[in-house]
Structure formats: structure tokens, C-alpha cells
């Protein structure tokens, strides 16, 4: 009898040794003549337990983690399955509180199936969404997406249904579906996990979008920093085409395009420029991409998670999705816990959990064991929240009301050793490094802001320089063309506002010449 053992092939699992563990398991199985088949899956997203292996038993899968190569002989010393009493055993994965408390809709399959098995995909509910879309027709599909209340998961939160309807209603000889998988925000990895762990889901979501708006061509723009994701997605496209799910017969085609290390290309108009083979410079809006997007044609450009959520909305109905969440934030959000956190990982849940619940209860506080001091939510353009604001519910509007944003759902935890003046400086420096150069506030302002923050850090005329930074942030916020310059004030001003003690610094004596 052959026992299936599931080992993630997710880049984060590989980065902490999953490949070596998989090889060691095969070696060990050979040594003991155990019938073992290794199935490489995506990650469940419980990254503190990676590499987490799952062993199939008659009673379901049992998980062990974090497993190192050195643990493997001991794990299989008494044959298969390893004893549930082993110190690395974490029980049935579904029963691990971190997973049990989630509402997995977009990530329902991730970590369970072989990402490159279409049979697995179908067995676990794949292509039900597209079938339902075809039975509803294009107009009915649009109505479902609109009724679900789904909003852009890249951070802007624009209603997906309205965007799609605009493209559907714009006549053109060609239309495009563009998936923004330029996931550059630090602390986020949801797109990467789907690309590596459930790529057919994205293919299905883009195919539904194409069907709903009348587009025949799709592009997935993946950042070059994600080599594993690029490989897996490209293989999935070949498999889907071989199966007739894409290509001429299917009336829809998808191509992967690889970014080239520019953060600003995550901004939608800059991404379109890049896809056209140009410098990734931001376009002024209007015209909206929905009217004049890629190559001047009507284009749906959505974040990967938005597109990957559509199949479940169609399969199970808009009402089911819209019933979750709070206020105008409907459905679920994959929250990504990262940085100095004890239990880092992906937590998909309905909107409405408070930041405190996310960081303390789910994340378990810091990994260093020191007190949490600051939490940056929404990537490098997101605000730093102090503990005093831990009652803020995870919701687009609630975060905006507290001068922050949820962005793409990244939550980066810092302990009490963080120097917030350095974090504010980094935000400005990052803006300077990544500015596309098109608008003056961002191109020049970010550089001047970094220099001014350096003076504050050296304790030079602190009050006057803080006033200057505040003024500069106003200019950036209201005068920039896109969110890079426009949102850089969030981390800077939140750091100054919530952690003023870090900006009140003694004068540093000039170094001896």
C-alpha cells in the first residue's frame, strides 16, 4: 500500500527546506521499504509550521511541523503513519485553531491539492464557477459579481462589478483582462500563494471575466521577484491549453508577462504601460483603463485576489459571499501576518476582525517575545498603527477613518526595538527609489523628504523640520498622480503622529573630520 505524503512546494516552504525534507522522506521510505508517494502541494499558509508535511491516513490527514531533514528518520522510525504522539505532530490540519477559525473561500483549495493537477482542481470544486457563469450568461454573471459586493483587493477597494460592467458596456474590436500580480507590498504574499498553490483558480477567474465583458485575451503580470510563481503559472497555462480550457477553441487565451523590478508597476496604469513594452510611468486618469486601457482598448485590470475570488462567488452565489463582512466591506479578506510575529501566515476571514485580534489572538504577538509597538497595515504605503488603535476593525472605511488603509491585506508587526523615525525615513527613501519620475511631488518630494528626515534623525532643528515634512506630505498627498507619492504620507505622518517620542531626538555631534 502506498501512503501519500503532502509536502508544500510553496516558495516560503522551499525557502525553509521543504525540498530537502521531501527528498529525505523518500530516502527514509526506501530504507524501510515503505510505500510512499510524495505529493507537492501549495501551502496552507501556516508559515511558522513550515515545512509542514501532511500524512494521509484512513481518518484524514495528520500534519507535522516544522519538519527538518534531521527530524525525518525519527518521524518514520515506527513505520507509517508516524505516531500522533510525536512532538512535531500538530494533529489534523483543519483542527489547528489558526486554520479552524478562518473562512476559506478564495483559499479553499490552497495547500490541499497538487497545484498542477487539473483532476485535483476539478475534484475540489474547480470550474463550477465558470459553468454557472455560462448558464447565467454574461449579463447574469456581471449581476452576480456586482451583487456579491466584491471590491478591489489590491487596496483601492473599487467595486469589481462596476468596473466589469463599464468594460462590458464599452464597444471595441478587442478587450483585455489583465491580472495585476505585481504584489510588491512588503508583508503580502496572497497572490504568490495562489500562483504557486492554486493557479487554475486564477485561470478560471480570468476566463469568467473574459466571458462577462467580451474579452478574448488575458495577461498575468507577475513580478520578477517571484520566480517560483512564474514557473508554476506558466506550466498551469500549458496544461489548461492542452485540456482545451484556453486557446482558440475556448475563445480565451492567457499569457504570463514578467515585471522587471519596478514597484510602481503595481499601479494599474503603470502596469499597462509596462505591458505595452514601455517605461512603467503612470498615466493620468481619465481616461479610465475600463474605457481606454491596454493598447487603448477597454481593459479589466484587477488584483489577482479579486479575480481568484470570482469563481467561488459564481459557484456558491453572490448572496453567500455578500452575507459575510461588515459595512461596505463584503466577503472575506486574506489577511497576511508578517514580520516579527509568532504565528505568521495567511488568515482568510470575513471583514470586521479588530487589528488587536489579528495581531494578538491570531498572530500570538511578536516572535521576539517583546511587546508589540507598531503594526504597519497595507504595505509600504500603509500607516503604522500603535496599540492604542488596536480596536480598529479590518474594513476599508474603518481604516480610512483612522488615516490608514488595509491595502492588499498585509500586516507587518514590529516589537519595541523599532525606531519609528527610521521607518518614516525608509518610507520616503523607498518612494524616492521607486518613483516613476512623472510627477514632481513624488520625484523631487521623496528625495527632499528623505534629506529632511535625516536632519530630524540627527536632531537638527527638529520642530522646524517636522513642520516642513508635514507640509511636504500635504503636497505629496494632494499633488501626486498616483498612490506611490499620494500614499507615502501615510507611513510618514502616522509614525510622527503616533510615536512622537521617536522624533524628539538629541542633537548628534558632527563627526570629527
Amino acid at each position, binding site marked *: 500500500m502506498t501512503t501519500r505524503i503532502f509536502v508544500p512546494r510553496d*516558495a*516560503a516552504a*522551499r*525557502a*525553509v527546506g521543504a525540498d530537502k525534507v521531501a527528498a529525505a522522506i523518500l530516502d527514509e521510505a526506501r530504507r524501510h521499504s515503505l510505500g510512499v508517494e510524495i505529493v507537492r502541494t501549495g501551502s496552507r499558509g501556516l*508559515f511558522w509550521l*513550515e515545512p509542514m508535511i501532511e500524512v494521509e491516513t484512513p481518518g484524514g490527514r495528520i500534519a507535522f511541523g516544522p519538519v527538518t531533514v534531521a527530524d525525518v528518520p525519527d518521524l518514520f522510525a515506527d513505520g507509517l503513519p508516524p505516531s500522533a504522539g510525536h512532538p512535531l505532530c500538530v494533529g489534523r490540519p483543519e483542527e489547528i485553531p489558526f486554520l479552524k477559525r478562518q473562512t476559506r473561500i478564495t483559499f479553499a483549495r490552497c495547500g490541499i491539492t497538487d497545484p498542477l493537477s487539473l483532476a485535483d482542481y476539478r475534484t475540489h470544486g474547480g470550474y463550477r464557477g465558470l459553468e454557472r457563469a455560462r448558464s447565467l450568461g454574461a449579463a447574469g454573471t456581471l449581476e452576480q459579481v456586482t451583487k456579491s459586493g466584491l471590491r478591489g483587493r489590491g487596496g483601492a477597494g473599487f467595486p469589481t462589478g462596476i468596473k466589469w460592467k463599464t468594460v462590458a458596456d464599452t464597444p471595441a474590436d478587442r478587450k483585455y483582462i489583465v491580472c495585476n500580480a505585481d*504584489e*510588491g*507590498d*512588503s*508583508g*503580502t*504574499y496572497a497572490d*504568490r500563494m495562489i500562483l504557486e498553490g492554486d493557479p487554475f483558480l486564477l485561470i478560471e477567474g480570468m476566463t469568467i471575466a473574459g466571458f462577462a465583458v467580451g474579452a478574448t485575451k488575458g495577461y498575468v503580470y507577475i513580478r*520578477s*521577484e*517571484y*520566480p*517560483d*510563481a512564474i514557473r508554476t503559472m506558466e506550466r498551469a497555462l500549458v496544461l489548461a491549453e492542452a485540456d482545451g480550457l484556453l486557446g482558440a477553441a475556448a475563445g480565451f487565451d492567457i*499569457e504570463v*508577462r*514578467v*515585471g*522587471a*523590478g*519596478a*514597484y510602481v508597476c503595481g499601479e494599474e496604469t503603470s502596469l499597462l504601460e*509596462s*505591458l*505595452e*513594452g*514601455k*517605461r*512603467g*510611468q503612470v498615466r493620468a486618469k481619465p481616461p479610465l483603463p475600463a474605457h481606454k486601457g491596454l*493598447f487603448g482598448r477597454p481593459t479589466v485590470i484587477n488584483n489577482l485576489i479579486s479575480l481568484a475570488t470570482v469563481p467561488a462567488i459564481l459557484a456558491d452565489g453572490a448572496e453567500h459571499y455578500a452575507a459575510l463582512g461588515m459595512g461596505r466591506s463584503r466577503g472575506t479578506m486574506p489577511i*497576511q*501576518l*508578517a*514580520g*516579527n*510575529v509568532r504565528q*505568521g*501566515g*495567511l488568515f482568510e476571514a470575513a471583514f470586521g476582525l479588530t487589528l488587536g485580534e489579528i495581531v494578538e489572538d491570531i498572530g500570538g504577538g511578536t*516572535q521576539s517575545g517583546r511587546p508589540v509597538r507598531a503594526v504597519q497595515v497595507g504595505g*509600504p504605503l500603509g500607516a503604522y498603527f500603535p496599540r492604542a488603535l488596536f480596536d480598529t476593525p479590518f474594513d476599508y472605511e474603518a481604516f480610512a477613518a483612522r488615516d490608514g488603509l488595509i491595502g492588499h491585506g*498585509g500586516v*507587518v*508587526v*514590529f516589537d519595541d526595538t*523599532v525606531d519609528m523615525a527610521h*521607518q518614516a525615513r*525608509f518610507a520616503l527613501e*523607498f518612494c524616492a*527609489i*521607486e518613483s*516613476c519620475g512623472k510627477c514632481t511631488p513624488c520625484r523631487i518630494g521623496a528625495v527632499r523628504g528623505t534629506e529632511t528626515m535625516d536632519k530630524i534623525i540627527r536632531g537638527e532643528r527638529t520642530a522646524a523640520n517636522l513642520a516642513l515634512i508635514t507640509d511636504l506630505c500635504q503636497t505629496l498627498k494632494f499633488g501626486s498622480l498616483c498612490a506611490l507619492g499620494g500614499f507615502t504620507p501615510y507611513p510618514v505622518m502616522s509614525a510622527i503622529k503616533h510615536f512622537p517620542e521617536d522624533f524628539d531626538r538629541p542633537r548628534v555631534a558632527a563627526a570629527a573630520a
Partner: protein
Amino acid sequence: MPAWNEAQASEIIRRHLVREGALLPILHDVQAAFGCVPAQAVPFIADALNLTRAEVHGVVSFYHDFRDKPAGRHVLKLCRAEACQSMNSEALARQVLDRFDLDWGETTPDGRVTVEAIYCLGLCACAPSALLDGEPMARLTPQSIDEIARQVDR
């Protein structure tokens, strides 16, 4: 890595010409073939795509990924973004740079290794992280630097 030659470059361009917006895929493949986008490539590609040299140069110089000269035999990309910062990546990066006596973006004189900054690899729950010759590494510690040095010395 072969030196720049027009026959190979023509073949790369021909492969991509049918695609819309072919410049980025062409530049990626040119860099994969020659280790960089050499100066000669700019007028050559411009000619093939009916673009000006300025347009192609503008694109090459806009993106952080494209190099004008080849990197070292190994390329280490260390993440400097916030999630890694929260796990002391800056101190670790300092140790790496000191170990190889390099500043960001530089290559050792013997051509062994280039160390570059990268802003997020999406391995943020296992920080600090890096990419060594395209392979992900995470939960880096000072001991990891020895492992990196061993791989680079191979």
C-alpha cells in the same frame, strides 16, 4: 555566458516579434542569454522593433532588473523591505556586505558574487529572506551567512 552576438539576439527578437508589447520579454531573454543588456543591444533592438534608441534606452534604464554589465557568478538578493526589517534584516545585511567587503549592488573583484537589495520576495512570514541564484532562503540567521558563503565558494 556567450558574448554579445547579433545572430543569437536576432533569434531572441524573432521569437517575440509576434507578441504585443514585445520589448520587455525581449530584454529579459537578452539578459538571460548574455548576462546583461549590453550597449550594442540597444540600437539593435530599436531597429528591429522600429523604435528609437532613446525609447529602448529609456525602458532599459527604467527597470531595476536590467544590467549593463554581467553580474558575478552568483547573485545574492537580500530583502530590505519592512517585514524583513522587523526581523533585523538590516543588521544581517551589514554582516553579509562586510563578509564579502561589498556595498549594495557591487560584485567581488574575483567575480564570485554580486549582492543586491531587493524589496520583498513575498516570504514575509519567514523573515528575513533572500534569493540566492533564484532560489529562496528564509529565516536567515548569522549562521545562514556561512551557508551562503559556502554556496558562493563552490
